[in-house]
């Protein structure tokens, strides 16, 4: 840059530090105001402060953090009627000439944000995984040993909530943000600052959640059922604020993605030609935008209950625990498809590359994902089959839940059709795709037992459920995530990973994962409820088996992170430009991807799956050499 940097830019360089300072100031102000200005009669052990103080402190600390990061510069500028940012300002905010520092400040480049997401998600997954190791260690014996009841439940709550947070952004965050604009031929997201905001809401959310350990923890697990939540100490407030932030992030990112996909597609790219991954992101974004507000409503009520002593969820005061359960699961069930639909999309995006065939049944695949999206809004009461709520509605929810297996089955049909008579290149991502389909199949079939009311009576709230959703989220989404990391790493970082070690790592994680969760399916069938610190003695052998496998699983996941760090940071082996010989638009742009993706916007011709003819998906104009292979 020829011009000297302005004050705003100098401050922006230090955004992270200023953000932390802003967070501290915000917390102090909020805590003081909340403690002293809001009348508060609830007399719990509040040596640390009152609920309004903590809640307002956290809320303002987030505002302070964002202000320090520079998120308020633009809106305040608009409010004062200042000049719009120039092209140059926008390029700077986009990270032009920023080097590594652009990863540590507010940057509007969707590629930077994608990598920020990836690193943050891996870091929090690691923390959540450590939590899982502690939980399994405690469950080696049928009675409390290494943890006490409070710390155990807090650990369960932290592990589950953190993992749910990360899972809801694990694929759409890194890969959705990084590749959707490129795949649709856009230079940027529709609202780049909003996109940065959706990312920068997550680190405070994760840290606020973790800070619960200083406030006494919380004992409700990730579902936060009231009135237990009303009973909890201050640690519950961390959960509420963190969940509200996550809800906002999911909702805003959904709106932004939909707006981008619907209005910023390149010429010649109707919806019917969009890569299947973009479709999956579109469906997911609708789920996020339409479901997250229900969570926010529920959290607001709980915040009122805890700070103003209203009685939304307190039966003695005219409220109802069912109100929380309904609102929470109205969000919670679409949420699980927020995890898994992008995984479907990614896997279907990769399959044609490795089979060298077109995606079989593109239209039904889209229909399947849309079907999953629509149905996911009408199944939430299957979480309440034994709750005693509205028993006469159960046949309907049983039917709608079982109906979801039809669109989900379509994904398998599409995979099988694509694989049919193909000479599949069994690369490392393909291994993980195989793992994905294997695990998700078990996840799906265990789900059938839970959707049926009579069998759910035995299996509900047992370890069977726990194993079921770990099969879908970890066995499904996380396996797809690992496939995608190996697959897209050459594009995102220009580095490649060692395949021999990865093959070993795959088998290690695949075997230990299945060992862990088959053991847990078994203890569930034999009658072990979830989230217990003590269990019946006859369940110990299977629990020991689960724990031993879980240690192996933890080690093999750590191995993946180790390989990733080693290859990317230390070995830095330069990857081929298009190592998988993909026809996808995202592989045709140079590595590293130019600041605004394209010199000129490509013109789309067809789906990027024409491996029979090798016909490229888009025309990049005369400037770019057409479709070089490796």
């Amino acid at each position: 840059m020829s011009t000297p940097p302005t004050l705003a830019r100098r401050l922006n360089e230090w955004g992270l530090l200023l953000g932390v300072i802003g967070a501290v100031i915000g917390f102090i102000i909020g805590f003081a105001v909340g403690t002293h200005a809001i009348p508060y009669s609830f007399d719990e052990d509040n040596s640390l402060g009152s609920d309004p103080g903590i809640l307002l402190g956290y809320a303002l600390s987030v505002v302070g953090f964002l202000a320090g990061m520079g998120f308020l510069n633009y809106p305040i500028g608009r409010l004062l009627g200042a000049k719009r940012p120039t092209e140059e300002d926008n390029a700077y905010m986009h990270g032009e000439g920023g080097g590594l520092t652009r990863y540590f400040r507010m940057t509007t480049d969707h590629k930077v944000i994608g990598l920020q997401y990836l690193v943050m998600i891996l870091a929090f997954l690691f923390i959540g995984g450590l939590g899982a190791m502690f939980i399994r260690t405690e469950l080696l014996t049928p009675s409390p040993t290494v943890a006490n009841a409070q710390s155990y439940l807090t650990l369960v709550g932290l592990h589950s909530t953190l993992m749910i947070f990360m899972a809801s952004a694990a694929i759409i965050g890194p890969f959705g943000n990084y590749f959707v604009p490129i795949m649709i031929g856009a230079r940027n997201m529709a609202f780049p600052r909003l996109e940065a905001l959706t990312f920068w809401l997550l680190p405070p959310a994760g840290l606020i959640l973790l800070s619960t350990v200083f406030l006494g923890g919380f004992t409700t697990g990730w579902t936060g059922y009231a009135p237990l939540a009303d009973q909890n100490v201050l640690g519950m407030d961390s959960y509420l604020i963190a969940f509200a932030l996550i809800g906002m992030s999911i909702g805003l990112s959904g709106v932004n993605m939909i707006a981008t996909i619907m209005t910023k597609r390149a010429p010649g790219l109707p919806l019917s030609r969009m890569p299947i991954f973009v479709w999956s992101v579109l469906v997911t974004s609708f789920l996020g935008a339409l479901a997250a507000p229900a969570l926010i409503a529920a959290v607001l009520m709980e915040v009122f209950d805890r700070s103003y002593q209203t009685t939304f969820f307190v039966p003695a005061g005219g409220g109802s625990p069912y109100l929380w359960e309904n609102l929470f699961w109205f969000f919670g069930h679409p949420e699980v498809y927020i995890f898994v639909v992008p995984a479907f999309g990614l896997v279907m995006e990769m399959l044609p590359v490795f089979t060298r065939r077109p995606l079989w049944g593109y239209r039904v695949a889209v229909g399947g994902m849309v079907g999953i999206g629509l149905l996911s809004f009408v199944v939430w009461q299957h979480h309440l089959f034994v709750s005693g709520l509205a028993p006469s509605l159960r046949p309907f929810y049983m039917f709608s839940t079982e109906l979801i297996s039809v669109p989900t089955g379509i994904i398998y049909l599409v995979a099988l059709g694509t694989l049919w008579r193909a000479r599949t290149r069994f690369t490392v991502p393909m291994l993980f795709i195989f793992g994905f389909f294997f695990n998700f199949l078990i996840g799906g079939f265990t789900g059938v037992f839970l959707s049926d009311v009579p069998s759910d009576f035995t299996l509900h709230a047992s370890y069977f459920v726990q194993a079921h959703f770990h099969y879908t989220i970890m066995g499904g989404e996380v396996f797809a995530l690992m496939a995608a990391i190996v697959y897209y790493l050459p594009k995102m970082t220009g580095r490649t990973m060692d395949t021999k070690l990865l093959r070993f790592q795959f088998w290690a994680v695949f075997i230990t994962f299945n060992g862990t969760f088959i053991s847990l399916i078994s203890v569930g069938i034999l009658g072990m409820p979830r989230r217990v610190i003590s269990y019946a003695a006859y369940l110990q052998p299977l629990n020991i088996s689960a724990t031993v496998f879980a240690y192996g699983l933890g080690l093999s996941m750590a191995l993946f992170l180790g390989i990733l760090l080693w290859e990317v940071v230390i070995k830095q082996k330069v990857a081929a430009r298009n190592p998988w010989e993909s026809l996808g638009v995202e592989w045709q742009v140079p590595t590293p991807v130019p600041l605004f993706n394209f010199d000129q916007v490509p013109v789309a011709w067809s789906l990027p799956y024409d491996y029979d003819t090798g016909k490229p998906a888009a025309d990049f104009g005369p400037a770019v050499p057409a479709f070089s292979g490796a």
Partner: protein
Amino acid sequence: MRNRATAIRVVIIVWFILAVGGDVALAFGPIPPGQASDLASSESLTILLLAEIGWPIFSAVLAALFFTMVVNRTAPPTEEPSAAALRGNTRAQTAWIAGTLVVVLSLAVYGTVALAIDQPGAGVPSQASALAMPTSTSQPLEVQVIAQQWWFTYRYPTYGGIETPQLVLPVNQKIEFNVTSLDVVHSFWFYALGVKADAVPLNDNVVTATPTKIGTYRIQCAELCGLWHGNMADNTAMVVSPSDFAAWIQQETTLDAPIMKYLLPYSHTYEPSPTIYGS
């Protein structure tokens, strides 16, 4: 291509053996939650049925995945072209969707019928007066389960509303569990009887089951209810013969006599203590 045909045949045979073997093994294996009550038997049957239907389909999809992915794979250096490109096949798609729909519809119909017969967790008490002594074993005996942090107690309205810390039930007598809570959401789980019902304050959640096997069983809480959720369990629930039950009731009535005047009159729900919420 002959190799291919052979491979397909081998996969189909392996699948067939797996499917039939698995189904046969399931039919002879113990299926949870066992046969200790009519409700448990019906749940076992449902689980068995779902497993019997599910296992062949599950193994078929797995076999297809295994065949298409693993048997047919190629190493990147020795590339062979894939067979002719297919972009979809309406008949295959229609057949698949129709097939899954048929399975789903029949499962839903079966589940609904089973639900209509068992009425687990029907939510409303089946009889007007809880105090009436059942005149036959098919008429339900009402037993109230009261959950609170962190134990269960039981009231027998038919026997003067006595409250006991231990659950004892007469064998072959239809029992109507009326589950409620005094503080937060719990869940009453009598695994062997196939009974699971959330205990929600100010709500009466009803499950009926007829225990059919004398024995000692485990009861536990199945909904996270706070600090000692894991210890909210009891290994001493008993199903006993009618005469033992009568003797036990007699004994408990004597034990309870001094405290009866402090117990609240029997009711399907109890107002939770407001002090719990601090207001």
